[in-house]
């Protein structure tokens, strides 16, 4: 087992979680909890794949995925921002809706065969760095490199720019932001849209790069929910989100690859000789998410870092409170 190859694939698989996590992070920073990530990712994966089959152009697939998932997210935005309904229930509904629509429109796609995928390439010079060059910069999908750029850019946008300041204000203290002349409603609609587009991009990353194809609901396999958990672990910080996403990506790959070799660390590999034990490996990402949540919640308590103060609350003009 070559560990650099597993980590290399893990980075690619973690890119899916990275996009979804950062997207959700933007929405939550504006004060809107969107539990529909899984549904929006399914929409993205399905529409990216079917567009690519129809046109032969994976870039168009990515674009359509982002727009379609972004539009679907606006249903949630309308329900929770304008109609002020409960964000939890609406997000759940969006998951059902996204899954249902993608199953209906994706009917027959699983038998559609292969498509032209997004290109993989290596970055010259950077590949020469020992180990790191192999893991991060050799023969990765173009979207993986987009992910590398996204993390610092998101951090810079949120923490060092004026629109980022407005974003944080809207999520922490909307009535104060409103008093400053920031349009709270428009900002929230916008960042829910951003979150939807990123979830769509995450879905497209699955179906056009990481594990190409459309396998109905198994395409995402709960990664949207893991992404929501990672936002809490990340404490709404893009760099921590990246660490979590890549670690989970590596874990997913490790689980796939650990069942192959006959010998593991000098011992007979139990997962090779008793494949049923593989089911316990399958539990790991989900159990880890719970563990990560426990750690994240305790750390947040200790450091007194919390969610954006207005997260989950509708903003009603003129009403007292946040």
């Amino acid at each position, binding site marked *: 087992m070559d560990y650099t190859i597993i980590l290399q694939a893990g980075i690619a698989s973690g890119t899916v979680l990275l996009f979804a996590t950062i997207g959700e992070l933007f929405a939550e920073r504006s004060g809107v909890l969107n539990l529909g990530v899984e549904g929006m990712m399914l929409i993205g994966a399905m529409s990216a794949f079917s567009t690519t089959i129809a046109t032969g152009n994976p870039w168009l697939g990515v674009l359509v995925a982002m727009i379609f998932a972004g539009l679907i997210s606006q249903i949630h935005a309308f329900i929770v921002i304008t109609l002020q309904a409960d964000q939890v229930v609406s997000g759940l509904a969006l998951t059902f*809706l996204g899954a249902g629509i993608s199953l*209906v429109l994706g009917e*027959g796609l699983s038998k559609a065969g292969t498509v032209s995928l997004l290109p993989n390439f290596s970055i010259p010079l950077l590949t020469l760095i020992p180990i790191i060059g192999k893991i991060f910069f050799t023969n990765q999908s173009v979207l993986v490199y987009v992910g590398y750029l996204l993390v610092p850019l998101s951090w810079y946008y949120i923490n060092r720019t004026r629109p980022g300041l407005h974003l944080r204000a809207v999520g922490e203290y909307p009535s104060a932001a409103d008093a400053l002349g920031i349009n709270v409603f428009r900002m929230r609609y916008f960042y829910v849209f951003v979150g939807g587009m990123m979830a769509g991009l995450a879905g497209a990353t699955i179906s056009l790069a990481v594990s190409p194809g459309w396998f109905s609901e198994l395409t995402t396999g709960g990664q949207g929910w893991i992404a*929501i958990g990672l936002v809490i672990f990340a404490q709404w910080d893009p760099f921590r989100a990246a660490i979590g996403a890549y670690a989970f990506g590596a874990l997913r790959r490790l689980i796939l690859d650990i069942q192959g070799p006959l010998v593991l660390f000098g011992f007979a590999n139990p997962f090779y000789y*008793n494949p049923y*034990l593989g089911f*316990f490996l399958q539990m790991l990402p989900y159990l880890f998410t719970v563990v990560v949540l426990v750690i994240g*919640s305790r750390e947040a308590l200790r450091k007194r870092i919390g969610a954006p103060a207005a997260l989950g609350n509708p903003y*009603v003009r003129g009403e007292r409170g946040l």
Partner: protein
Amino acid sequence: MTEPTTLNKRRAPFRFRIEPRLSEPPAWYPAAVSFGAIIVALILGGVLISFAGGDPIRSYLHIAKASFGDIGVLSDTIVKATPIILAALACSVAFRMKLWNIGAEGQFIMGAFGASAIVLAPVLPAETSRWIFIPVMMIAGMAAGAIWGFIPGYLKAKFNVNEIISTLMLNYVAVAWVNFWIFGVWTEGGFQMSPKFPDGAWLPRLSDYAKAFPIFRGLTTHLGLVIGIVAAIILWFIIFRSRWGYEIRLIGDNPNAAQYAGINITRNTIWVMMLSGALAGLGGMSEVGGVVHRLQTAPVAAGYGFTGIIVAWLAKLNPLAIIFVSILFGALILAGREIQPSGVPKMIQGIILVCLIASDFLLRYRVVIERVEE
């Protein structure tokens, strides 16, 4: 007081003004709004079906005929509704406290596992009488579901871990856990299922009494329906007539007030999650004992736990209303199996939920159309 929000249409001769309702709407109003939401959802669903190349009217007619057309299919509809009743009861009690238990699916699966373990381990010998088998399986199913509800409840109460994500993650763990047992331990000839249960572990069906009552011939409705209805009645009494139910409702409506009133939120969180899990687990038991008659992942993990969420919401968390709403959704699932494309029932469920949530707005606000005076 809140200032009325205005959706400004400057150029139009009229405008919509939205103002909060000051008085309770009449009793028929919420039901009418829900009904309207479902109609809108069916229309939207029809539009999407025709987009996907289907015929919406034929699809809907087919659903109606294939689920209520004669007593045989009506019985099948009730069989499909039975696990939904119990899963929705599970969701409703947790939602009542604003505990978002999305894990009814996993608790349902664990309940099926717990009940099956009695037969397959075997805890009771195969020739045990029905009257011992069934109660023991019920207890085992409820216990297994309650354990699966306890974990997120405890994590929520002690570590403030978001229960939405923890319950959802445990769903996937439950599927993998059952897969391990039916592949690795209890497999029948290498297939992904356990051997069939002995007769004593089958819940009695109406058709078992066809000798005495010929009309019952071929009807598959089983004891699980009775279990579901009894559970709904008991839950109604707990929620609306007991001290515990009062505490649950108070915590859900106003946790701060509950705290000041000296209600122990930590303990209630854990107990309610366990009750929720036990109800879902009972649903899993009823499904393996009444329908599947063996432990198998695909027919047990068929999404009843998720449908339960929608049903609980549609029934406004009322245990008795859940019975009737479940039958409607049982019909949708039963008939939906034959509809192409196959994702249609799931999509319609999603659209119904979206429309329902959006329609709640009309319960809290009034839309007033008025002339614009320049």
